[in-house]
C-alpha cells in the first residue's frame, strides 16, 4: 500500500476533440468524432491503404508564440501547451525570478512519448539530402530527442528535481503518470507534472502501421472508423495529442487549498515477454497489471467499478483486454473506450485517457463509447453506449498497453 497520499490538482490536454481539457471532455460527452480524412498529399502519393487520422482540433502553432513554435517539434509544442494548462489549472503561476510557486528542488517532470520527434528527424534528413549541411537546423537534435517535450516543460516550470521521459509506446502516457506517483512516494518531489505526448503522423509512421495491418481502412466513413468492442472494428486510427496532469502530495495540496480531482492510489506495470506487437494470448501481463494496481491501492477487485479501456479498435486486442478485465476484476465493471472518439494518441493516449478517467470520477459521469453498434459477444462486459452513464465512482482504472508488451494500469480513487 502507498504511504503518501498523492492527488491530482491540475489537468491539461490538446486532442483531436479540442484544444484543452474542457472542450475535449465536452466533446467526449456529446459523442463527437475526432477522426478525419487525412488530406496530406502523401496519402495518395504512396497509395496508403489507411487514409484517416485523428489530427489535432487546434493547431499548436495557433496557440504558441511564433518564435517558440519554430524552436519546438510538434510533439514538444503540444506537451508545452498541455503542461501550461495543467499548471494554471492547478492554481500555479508561471515561475519568474520574483515568484516560484513551487520550490524548484521539489518539482519534477515525467512526460513520456512513443517516438518523440520523428517528423523533425525525417524533415531535417530531407533538408540535408536536398540542400546540404548549411540548411540543417541547429535545433535538430533538441527537437527530435524523445526527452525534448519533458525538458521544455521542465525549463518553463523550473523543475529541478528531475526531468524524465519513459518510452513504452502506447503505454507511455500512463507510465509517465505512474512513475510520477512513485517519485512522490519516494520523497523525490512534492509536485510532479506528468503525462504523455505524441505527434508522429508522417508518411513513414503511417506506412509502417499500414504494413503491420493495425490501422482501420474504413476510409469512406471516418466518423465510424474507430469502433472499439464493435463486431465490425478493423483497426485503430492514428492520432496526435498530449495530456498532462499535476500530481501533488496531498498535504502539499491541502496546505494551499488546491482543488483535488481525484487521488492516484496505485498502479500496476508488467511486461508480456511474449511478442513485440501482439498481446499475450492469456493476457497474463494485463491481468497482473490490473491485479497489482488493486493490491497496491489496498482494495479488492470488487471495489473497481469502472475501467477506461485501452481498447484501440483492433480485432484481437479489444477481446484480449475484455477477457483480462473480466479475469482481473470481474464482470461487474463498467467500461468505456474513448479511442472511439479521440483516435489513438500513442504516447499521449494513456495520459489523455487518465484525464478522462479522473473526470469520470470527479463528475460521476462515464462517457459513452461512440460507434458501438453491435457489441462483440466475446466482450462480456457492460460497455457504456449511447448516452454518458451517471454513476458515483469510488475507484476506477485506466488501462494502457503498448507495442513491446507493456501493460500499465493506473488506479484513481475519489478524493
Amino acid at each position, binding site marked *: 500500500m502507498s504511504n503518501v497520499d498523492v492527488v491530482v490538482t491540475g489537468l491539461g490536454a490538446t486532442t483531436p476533440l479540442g484544444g484543452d481539457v474542457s472542450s475535449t471532455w465536452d466533446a467526449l460527452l456529446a459523442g463527437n468524432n475526432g477522426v478525419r480524412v487525412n488530406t496530406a498529399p502523401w496519402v495518395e502519393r504512396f497509395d496508403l491503404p489507411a487514409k484517416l487520422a485523428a489530427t489535432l482540433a487546434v493547431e499548436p502553432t495557433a496557440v504558441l*508564440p*511564433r*518564435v*517558440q513554435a519554430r524552436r519546438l517539434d510538434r510533439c514538444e509544442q503540444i506537451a508545452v501547451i498541455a503542461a501550461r494548462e495543467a499548471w494554471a489549472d492547478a492554481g500555479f503561476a508561471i515561475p519568474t525570478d520574483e515568484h516560484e510557486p513551487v520550490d524548484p528542488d521539489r518539482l519534477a517532470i515525467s512526460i513520456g512519448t512513443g517516438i518523440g520527434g520523428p517528423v523533425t528527424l525525417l524533415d531535417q534528413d530531407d533538408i540535408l539530402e536536398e540542400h546540404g549541411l*548549411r*540548411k540543417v*537546423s*541547429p*535545433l535538430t537534435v*533538441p527537437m527530435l530527442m524523445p526527452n525534448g517535450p519533458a525538458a521544455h516543460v521542465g525549463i518553463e516550470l523550473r523543475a529541478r528535481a528531475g526531468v524524465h521521459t519513459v518510452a513504452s509506446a502506447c503505454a507511455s502516457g500512463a507510465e509517465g503518470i505512474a512513475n510520477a506517483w512513485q517519485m512522490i512516494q519516494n520523497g523525490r518531489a512534492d509536485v510532479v507534472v506528468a503525462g504523455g505526448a505524441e505527434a508522429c503522423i508522417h508518411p513513414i509512421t503511417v506506412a509502417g502501421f499500414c504494413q503491420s495491418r493495425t490501422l482501420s481502412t474504413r476510409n469512406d466513413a471516418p466518423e465510424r472508423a474507430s469502433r472499439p468492442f464493435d463486431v465490425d472494428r478493423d483497426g485503430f486510427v492514428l492520432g496526435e495529442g498530449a495530456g498532462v496532469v499535476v500530481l501533488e502530495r496531498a498535504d502539499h495540496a491541502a496546505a494551499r487549498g488546491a482543488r483535488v480531482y481525484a487521488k492516484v492510489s496505485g498502479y500496476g506495470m508488467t511486461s508480456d515477454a511474449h511478442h513485440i506487437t501482439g498481446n499475450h494470448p492469456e493476457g497474463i501481463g494485463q491481468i497482473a497489471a490490473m491485479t497489482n494496481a488493486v493490491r497496491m491501492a489496498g482494495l479488492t477487485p470488487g471495489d473497481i467499478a469502472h475501467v477506461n479501456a485501452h481498447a484501440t479498435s483492433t480485432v484481437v486486442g479489444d477481446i484480449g483486454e475484455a477477457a483480462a478485465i473480466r479475469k482481473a476484476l470481474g464482470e461487474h465493471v463498467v467500461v468505456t473506450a474513448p479511442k472511439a472518439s479521440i483516435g489513438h494518441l500513442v504516447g499521449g493516449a494513456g495520459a489523455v485517457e487518465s484525464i478522462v478517467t479522473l473526470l469520470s470520477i470527479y463528475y460521476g459521469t462515464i462517457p459513452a463509447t461512440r460507434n458501438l453498434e453491435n457489441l462483440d459477444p466475446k466482450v462480456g462486459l457492460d460497455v457504456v453506449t449511447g448516452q454518458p452513464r451517471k454513476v458515483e465512482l469510488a475507484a476506477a482504472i485506466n488501462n494502457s498497453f503498448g507495442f513491446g508488451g507493456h501493460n500499465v494500469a493506473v488506479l484513481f480513487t475519489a478524493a
Partner: protein
Amino acid sequence: MSEKPSDAQILDGLAEIVEEVAGVATDDVTADKSFVDDLDIDSLSMVEIAVQAEDRFGVKIPDDELANLKTVGDAVNYVSKHV
C-alpha cells in the same frame, strides 16, 4: 545583390533575420546591442542567423569569425567588409 549595400541596408536586413529567427522586434536590433546579453539570442539561434545572413548578403561567415560578432554592429561591419 548587384550593388554593395550600405551599412543601413545591412542593419535593416540583419534586423529582419533576427526578428524572424528570434522574435526580437526589428526596431530593437540596433548596432550597439549585444546578441547574447541584450537580445537574449542563444548559440543555436546565432547559427541560424549566420546562415541566413550568408544567403542574404552573399558572404561567408566561418565559425571562428562568428564567435567574434558580439554586437549587431560587429555583424554589420563584418558583412560590409566581406560583401
